């Protein structure tokens, strides 16, 4: 496709070059890869229709981000922000009851790496991975209003720090530090679970995790966990902390020996798509996507997303044949 008359040199191909980074941006704003995909599609359509009004003065990228932000805002109107179980429920101990499921729209969901990670040099890639970690995405949904205002005014609307300071009746220093505070809030939510860099042994931990399931070795799995490890499984509010309760739940769920595993990349973290038969000996069906936070060779969190509709996004079938 070539550029529209009056649209200068901008072509459909040029718009498409921004699809992946815009998907990452919309995912960070919305907390759902399904919604992010729809938002980017809508933003691309709006951009294409408005190309004749595009002025090169500010550049294509900021213009597309502004359109995408508007789409995300439209999608977010009148709706609660998405969360993780540990944001909305007390940690469970004792009987470990799964409880009722909440709607998909209630929860932050995972995203395939290939849809949201940007390319670039290793430093850019590391930053890109950091910015889509599950805990980071969840924290973004719940930034304090002032931090969100600073982010939107500075990064999207391109206001100068001095202008933001006057608007918010504060100092330029305070505005600049609000950006840092936003990062600190995110780090707090992250519970020190963000690794300093993606380690080669992440994949070894994932392999050991899968191996433990396949060998029916619950003790081997528990040995991979940090003392403060958590396990959560949206759409249920249930979440637990510590190897003892996670072990108890794994035994109760009776998952060992029945499941089949397909390693994937999600949220810049090691992850695995899990298939499970509906009855013993049955065909393995898409069951869950599990994203691991690995810190220093141990598992800090297991985010289990019980959503078979995610499998298509990872290019995986909904069931496994022979």
């Amino acid at each position: 496709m070539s550029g529209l008359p009056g649209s200068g040199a901008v072509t459909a191909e040029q718009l498409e070059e921004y699809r992946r980074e815009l998907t990452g941006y919309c995912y960070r704003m919305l907390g759902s890869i399904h919604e992010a995909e729809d938002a980017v599609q809508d933003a691309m359509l709006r951009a294409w229709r408005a190309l004749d009004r595009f002025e090169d003065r500010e550049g294509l990228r900021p213009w597309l981000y502004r359109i995408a932000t508007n789409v995300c805002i439209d999608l977010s109107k009148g709706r609660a922000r998405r969360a993780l179980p540990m944001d909305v429920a007390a940690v469970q101990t004792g009987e470990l009851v799964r409880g009722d499921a909440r709607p998909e729209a209630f929860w932050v969901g995972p995203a395939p790496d290939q849809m949201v990670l940007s390319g670039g040099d290793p430093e850019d890639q590391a930053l890109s991975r950091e910015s889509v970690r599950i805990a980071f995405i969840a924290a973004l949904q719940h930034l304090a209003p002032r931090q969100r205002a600073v982010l939107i005014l500075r990064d999207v609307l391109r206001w100068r720090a001095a202008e933001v300071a006057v608007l918010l009746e504060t100092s330029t220093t305070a505005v600049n530090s609000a950006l840092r505070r936003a990062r600190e809030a995110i780090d707090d939510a992250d519970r020190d679970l963000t690794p300093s860099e993606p380690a080669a042994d992440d994949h070894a931990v994932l392999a050991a995790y899968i191996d433990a399931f396949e060998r029916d070795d619950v003790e081997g799995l528990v040995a991979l966990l940090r003392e403060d490890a958590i396990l959560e499984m949206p759409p249920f509010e249930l979440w637990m902390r510590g190897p003892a309760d996670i072990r108890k739940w794994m035994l109760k769920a009776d998952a060992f020996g029945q499941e089949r595993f397909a390693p994937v990349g999600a949220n810049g973290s090691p992850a695995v798509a899990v298939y499970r038969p509906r009855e013993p000996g049955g065909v393995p069906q898409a069951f869950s996507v599990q994203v691991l936070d690995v810190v220093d060779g141990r598992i800090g969190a297991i985010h289990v997303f019980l959503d078979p509709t995610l499998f298509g996004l990872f290019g995986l079938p909904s069931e496994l044949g022979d």
Partner: protein
Amino acid sequence: MSPGQNAPDFPASEVDLDVSWLVPADLSAVDALARLHLTAARCGRSLHLHGACGGLSELLDFCGLGDVLNVCGCAGQPARERQ
């Protein structure tokens, strides 16, 4: 932009702006209103947005500016309560 017909009386140092016409509310609207607020502040005036409809209040809240800009609801509605 004209003062709202149903606007409450404000002292001369305060400016009331009818924004009921501002649909659809989008990020350009937020940008414009925030800049008006900024200009008013620099002139020593206080800006009140009156008649915010069509999701403008939600939009400002989403942007973290709900408590920064002085927003009153649609005509006949009381001013939005702040949390």
